[in-house]
């Protein structure tokens, strides 16, 4: 017993180092698996509050470009509105209105990040605004990510620029679908993998969300094909996708809630049993 205590006292520095290092590695490993970062995230009161107050100031610096983006979107929506009025009365299905299935909220990005390999954004909406985990986040130009953690007033977003993010996407022309991943290199390019070899497409084709998951509705723009090659087994294409979004300059985003997600998951669960 005496020897054990002596050993602990002699090596207290090393043991403390091991303990704290172990804790840090544990947090790191947890943060690498999806949805598991338990409490190390910037959605808490202190860090969220600091980012929010700084964003109040720095928000003025890019007012002009953000206004430009909003004006562009307004123009697009206005033209859509006009078009749908004209076509009213005929048997016309508006593919851009998502009926009552999807609910939209708006939010501001208060912390952006794109230089790490696992990027998270922080937004200024949280549980009090009925934002929950697994809601989709888009901007006026394309998708941004998925809500990861929420506190009372803030939320973190798992960005598409995150090597753990997996989002279902497809080609706009055909219905061949694959998975969006990111290799951690350029914030402008993400990778679409598992597109079958039979699919026909060319550089410049548009990639959209597939609507196969319950998070994003179908037909939200993602980007265009920059280049492509067959993977090692030569069965699937690997496509470099150039994002419509400039992920380094985003401020206003929309959060999508799928109201029927519970029904869908219940149905899928009952089928598995």
């Amino acid at each position, binding site marked *: 017993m005496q020897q054990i205590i002596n050993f602990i006292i002699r090596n207290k520095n090393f043991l403390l*180092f091991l303990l704290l290092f172990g804790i*840090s590695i544990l947090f790191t490993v947890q*943060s690498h698996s999806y949805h598991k970062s338990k409490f190390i*995230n910037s959605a808490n009161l202190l860090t969220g509050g600091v980012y929010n107050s700084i964003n109040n100031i720095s928000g003025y610096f890019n007012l002009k470009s953000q206004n430009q983006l909003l004006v562009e979107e307004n123009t697009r929506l206005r033209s859509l509105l006009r078009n749908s009025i004209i076509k009213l009365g005929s048997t016309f299905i508006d593919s851009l209105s998502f009926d009552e299935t999807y609910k939209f909220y708006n939010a501001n990005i208060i912390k952006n990040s794109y230089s790490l390999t696992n990027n998270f954004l922080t937004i200024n909406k949280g549980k009090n605004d009925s934002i929950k985990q697994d809601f989709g986040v888009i901007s006026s130009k394309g998708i941004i990510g998925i809500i990861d953690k929420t506190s009372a007033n803030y939320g973190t977003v798992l960005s598409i620029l995150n090597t753990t993010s997996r989002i279902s996407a497809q080609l706009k022309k055909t219905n061949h679908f694959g998975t969006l991943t990111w290799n951690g290199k350029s914030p402008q390019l993400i990778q679409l993998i598992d597109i079958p070899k039979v699919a026909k497409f060319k550089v410049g084709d548009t990639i959209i969300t597939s609507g196969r998951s319950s998070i994003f509705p179908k037909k939200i723009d993602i980007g265009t094909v920059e280049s492509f090659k067959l993977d090692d087994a030569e069965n699937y294409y690997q496509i470099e996708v150039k994002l419509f979004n400039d992920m380094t300059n985003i401020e206003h985003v929309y959060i999508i809630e799928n109201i029927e997600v519970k029904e869908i998951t219940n149905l899928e669960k009952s089928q598995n049993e």
Partner: protein
Amino acid sequence: MNSIFSIHTWRFFALVILQVLIFNHINFLGYINPYIYILFIALFPVKNNRIILILLSFFLGIIIDFFLDTGGIHAAACVFIGYVRPVALKFSFGTIYEHQTVKFNSVDFGAKLNYLTFLTIMHHLMLFSLEIFNFSKIILVLQKTLFSSIFTILLCITINIIFSRKAK
């Protein structure tokens, strides 16, 4: 004692705030950021207890992690350099360290540069290998370590020169 204590408290918080609000948004060439908060660990008084330094390094790292949503990578890297600091001290200051009389304001520039370089490279290597967490991307780790280290060392030396008081 009291003034030393308060200087280090201020330095702790000032470096955290600077790091989080300014130096993480530089993104030079897309991904190069300096991590200047390690100055706190580098300039911590030599005579003090090692246990205190290791604990403080952990808290410094975990606060940075909270702000950056990075899990525990900064905490791990900080604890690591907090632990290996005596090795770095011995490596770069030699006999002065043996006599426990290192004062960072009065040592010569070359030794100080050596010391900061050693700590920075250790920290960045640990940080980026944990961030990327993938042996097949070892080139990316080394590349990020190299570029960020250059940036960090330059800034640390600059800050050090600006804020150091003349040793009498």
